């Protein structure tokens, strides 16, 4: 059963094709990665799924219902959570308050939202920092905060936009563990990632984008042996 089905979506900006005829499916309960060189259209696809802008053509269905053209808050309410590549903390609020904002989507009381937020913060090891202003966090913690906020909306599908970038290898491994745990509990994940270490460790399926087109799809093992992928992105001598 596919949670998300993307069919033939295209998007141009002032005549420049950012995404062209991209199609893929995300099976329920899996971790999937979208990789590709800079400017390949990864973030554009994310933004289309998240409702930032509609696709020029093509369709997206989530849980069996069409969601292309919905606005970002409707997408989130439907059950797709997302993080931003360039983190967007609510700087004037504390860490706990940041996550509570997400918690209010499915909890109408302050106590309820706080309980959800605390759960998520524990999970991401941010609980000791809950009373700090978000502006005081380091970049790795801000990345965690992005994830925490999205998780507090209780998504069924989580879109992660380069959450590993800038993390040290040990921090990266910690995040991998967090996502594995969430996935075991049933969360479906789609990540855009440059850090191949994380992709190889996490993803069951990988799609490769190049110039806005999906040039390869398969398991990580298949992808790293695919000649087209090696040429366009990973390079002949990639060590994994």
């Amino acid at each position, binding site marked *: 059963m596919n949670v998300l089905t993307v069919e033939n979506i295209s998007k141009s900006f002032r005549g420049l094709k950012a995404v062209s005829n991209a199609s893929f499916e995300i099976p329920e309960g899996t971790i999937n990665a979208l990789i590709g060189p800079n400017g390949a259209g990864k973030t554009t696809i994310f933004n289309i799924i998240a409702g930032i802008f509609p696709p020029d053509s093509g369709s997206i269905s989530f849980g069996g219902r069409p969601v292309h053209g919905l606005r970002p*808050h409707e997408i989130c309410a439907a059950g797709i959570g997302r993080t931003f590549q360039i983190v967007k903390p609510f700087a004037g609020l504390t860490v706990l308050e940041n996550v509570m904002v997400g918690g209010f989507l499915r909890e109408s009381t302050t106590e309820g939202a706080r309980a959800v937020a605390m759960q998520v913060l524990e999970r991401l090891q941010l609980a000791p920092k809950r009373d700090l202003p978000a502006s005081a966090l380091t970049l790795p913690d801000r990345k965690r905060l992005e994830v925490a906020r999205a998780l507090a909306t209780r998504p069924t599908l989580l879109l992660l936009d380069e959450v590993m970038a800038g993390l040290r290898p040990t921090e990266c491994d910690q995040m991998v563990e967090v996502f594995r745990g969430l996935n075991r509990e049933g969360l479906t994940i789609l990540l855009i990632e440059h850090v191949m270490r994380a992709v190889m460790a996490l993803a069951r399926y990988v799609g490769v984008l190049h110039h806005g087109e999906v040039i390869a799809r398969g398991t990580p093992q298949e992808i790293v042996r695919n000649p087209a992928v090696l040429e366009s992105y990973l390079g002949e001598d990639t060590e994994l």
Partner: protein
Amino acid sequence: MSRAQASLAVLGAALVAFPFIAGNYALSVATLILYFAYTGQAWNVMMGFAGQLSLGHALYVGVGAYAAAGLFYHYGLGPWAGLWLAILLCVAMGLIVGFLAFRFGISGVYFALLTIAFAEFTRIGFDHLDWLGGPGGLFLKVAQRDTWDLANFRGPPLMYYYAMLALCFLALLLCSRLLGSKAGYYWQAIREDEEAAQALGINTFRWKMLAVAISSAMTAVSGVFFAFYYNNLFPEQIFHISRSIEIILGPIIGGIGTLFGPILGAALLTLLSDGITDGLAALGWEIPGIKQVFYGVVLLAVIMFLPNGVWPYIAKRLKL
């Protein structure tokens, strides 16, 4: 009871007891402070909580004032009826401004300009509305100073003082409730980063409209008070942009987005500016415009030294 609650209880008791020790002049200054504290609190819901800068809040004061005054002047209806008309009209105006701005993605400085424009249109409109006195003004019969006529809100200065005190208290209660609820969290999220707020499932259009509705409804009540306290209304004065600026100086100086900033800011500004004007007058110097110069200096000083306002600084010092 926490330290903050205890301090608030003491302050409240002092304000209730204040008229018994104060003379008429002190009472009128205190009423003015409370008026600005309340109106600043109303503005703060929109700007401080939800991050939508209105530079045209005189619009709601004016429309609220004229609505209630018009009903009283023409039909003898007291402000308890006028209040509802005032709120209805002001919320409608607020929602029109909000709809135009938020629906078409007008934000920041452009939103502020739109709010000024609406206040100005309305001022010009009222200049041509002879039914409400036009540019010559609308005058209510001055109150009997010795009897309390609550039904028509006519009475001694003491009555106006207590009315304003009650309004301040209710506004503080309402704002504190709002800030701690889903609405408060959502507004602050929108203020900090609207795109991130949307990604967390917040329908930012709807929540911003709610902030405008609450803020304009609260400000409408200021207008009704204004009409029955001062008894004369001129479009050139009540809708003037300097009135809008006066409303927002208190919260800016006291601390935007805080609960006590608008109250503290109103007290500081009114006391200091009246103090300076009176002090200079006592020395025999009448300097026109000194109040405006003073506002400018205080604003500069606060922006330079306490950019978050005076209240956050004091709250930290007092560990409240």
